[in-house]
């Protein structure tokens, strides 16, 4: 049996306060290669904390997190950063595109850090943009794109580094229903190509597309059908 992409075992995350706030409480989660998982829950339920830990942006207070079979909790800052850059593609609610750079430059940013050859970078960016249906907007600046187009560029940037996990934080939170549909269709397509996708959302429409749904409430995960 191959290694799961994500394997959380007994993960807790406490924030120092009086009394301490326990944002995640003994979380155990396994996501296999090719899974499409939606994490749903109201605000304040620990969604963001879970996302930060999954994205190696934060460390759990206790427990174990294995990404592609690599135990991450013992890694030092630099190694976690390299792992993050190589294995995880982020998609944010607010896109996080650099306003002064073209679409192609924004996508190519994914290869700036890490051991990627400069040769053929533009071609790879074009390929990633084609994959999300944005091949015709290469020289545009983000401020001339619609919200849906911007999110697709951001997804292209996430795909550029060929991650083993696409981590999406409310990817449709800033989009209207038509653009939401387009992005969700894109996720379905990527999923069918074998990409592992984990979406954090509070919208039922988004979670409906996922094969697996996990509800989070008060830091506790419960699997839903």
């Amino acid at each position, binding site marked *: 049996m191959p290694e799961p992409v994500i394997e959380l075992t007994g993960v807790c995350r406490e924030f120092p306060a009086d009394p301490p706030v326990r944002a995640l409480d003994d979380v155990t989660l396994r996501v296999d290669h090719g899974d499409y998982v939606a994490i749903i829950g109201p605000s304040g339920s620990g969604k963001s904390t879970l996302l*930060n830990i999954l994205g190696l*942006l934060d460390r759990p207070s206790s427990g174990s997190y294995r990404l592609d079979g690599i135990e991450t909790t013992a890694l030092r*800052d*630099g190694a976690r950063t390299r792992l993050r*850059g190589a294995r995880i593609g982020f998609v944010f609610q607010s896109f996080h595109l650099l306003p002064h750079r073209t679409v192609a430059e924004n996508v190519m940013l994914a290869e700036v850090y*890490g051991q990627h050859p*400069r040769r053929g970078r533009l071609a790879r960016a074009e390929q990633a943009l084609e994959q999300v249906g944005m091949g015709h907007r290469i020289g545009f600046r983000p401020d001339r794109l619609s919200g849906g187009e911007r999110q697709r560029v951001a997804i292209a940037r996430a795909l550029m*580094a060929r991650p083993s996990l696409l981590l999406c934080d409310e990817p449709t939170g800033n989009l209207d229903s038509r653009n939401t549909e387009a992005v969700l269709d894109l996720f379905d397509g990527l999923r069918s190509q074998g990409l592992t996708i984990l979406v954090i959302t509070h919208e039922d429409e988004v979670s409906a597309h996922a094969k697996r749904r996990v509800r989070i409430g008060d830091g506790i995960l419960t699997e839903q059908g």
Partner: protein
Amino acid sequence: MNIRDLWAESLAGMLARPVRSALTTLGTVLGITTLVVTMGIAATAGNQIVGRFDELLATSVTVEVPQNSRQALVSWEAAAELRRLRGVVSATALAQSDKSSNLVVTANNLLDPTQVAGQTLAVVAATPDLPATTRGRLLTGRFYDAGHLTRGDRVVVLGEQAAAMLGITRLDHAPAVFINDRAYTVIGIIGGLQREQILASAVLVPPTLGPDFGLKNVTRVLVGTQLGAAELIARQAPLALSPNHTGELQVIAPPSPKRARDGAQDDVNGLFLILGLVSLIVGAVGIANVTLVTIMERVAEIGLRRALGAARRHIAAQFLLESSLIGLTGGVIGASLGTVAVVVVAAVRQWTPVLDIRLALAAPAVGALVGLLAGLYPALRAARMEPVDALR
């Protein structure tokens, strides 16, 4: 991270806000311009001063012989002996006193009550090599020589102005001047003196005639040296002239060229150097401020870069390079403006602009250094940011 990627990211970061970046460079531009102008003008002016006086001043040594003792400290022959010193081109012994400086000289001995016939002129006894030492030129006639001295001929040579005052222009009728009711034949008129120009209004007499005017002893020795020999000759001359009384002779030597240049620079530099440094510090504070503001604006970008795998050092390097680039730009503009200013000032004053090439090259580097130092703290702040906080 590839160094070319780092360069491209920093350049793009700087050019993203061109107006802000341009304004940020202003402080550095001012500072570097002031420094380059200050140093350039000082070097230019210093070289002009030295250049103008070099040739004559740097080869003139004068030895003053005090007259308070009964015996002669320096003999008339000693000056000629000086020539045996290596580096001496010519040497002339002079004698002049307060009394001899105000003698009435007339061109004839007629007493014409209707006009003032006499001129008050200085009579100076000088050895025959005076034309060589003063670099003078005989306008007409000749200078007296050893023969005149040996025979004790009553001859004089007039300075150019003295001749004009006495109305003597031609010598073919062997004109005479009368001093203390005694006649002396004028055998030459000397002009174009470059050293001791005051002698142009004097009556020069051979040392043998000196006693007529109370000029028995040498009061001054003029020495013309080769370039660069003045300092050495100034030390050796008293010993050669009067070995027993070296301490009593006063030697006037030219300041060494190096000191002249330093002096000129010191005068101009001080204040403006401080001004330039202050501008640089203000520029650095400006860069630090703007970089800090920029970083606060770009928190989300920093978070994104961290999410894309940028290590803290990558973030720090990018912002350091951005601030250094701003400093470098300021340095390049400042150095250019400063150089142009130096050339313009030199052109207006009809000087030759002198600018150390190292200064022109170092100025942009100083600008970059200022930017680098100014960027240290902001870059550290950016690198310390936690990605979780930055992405929030």
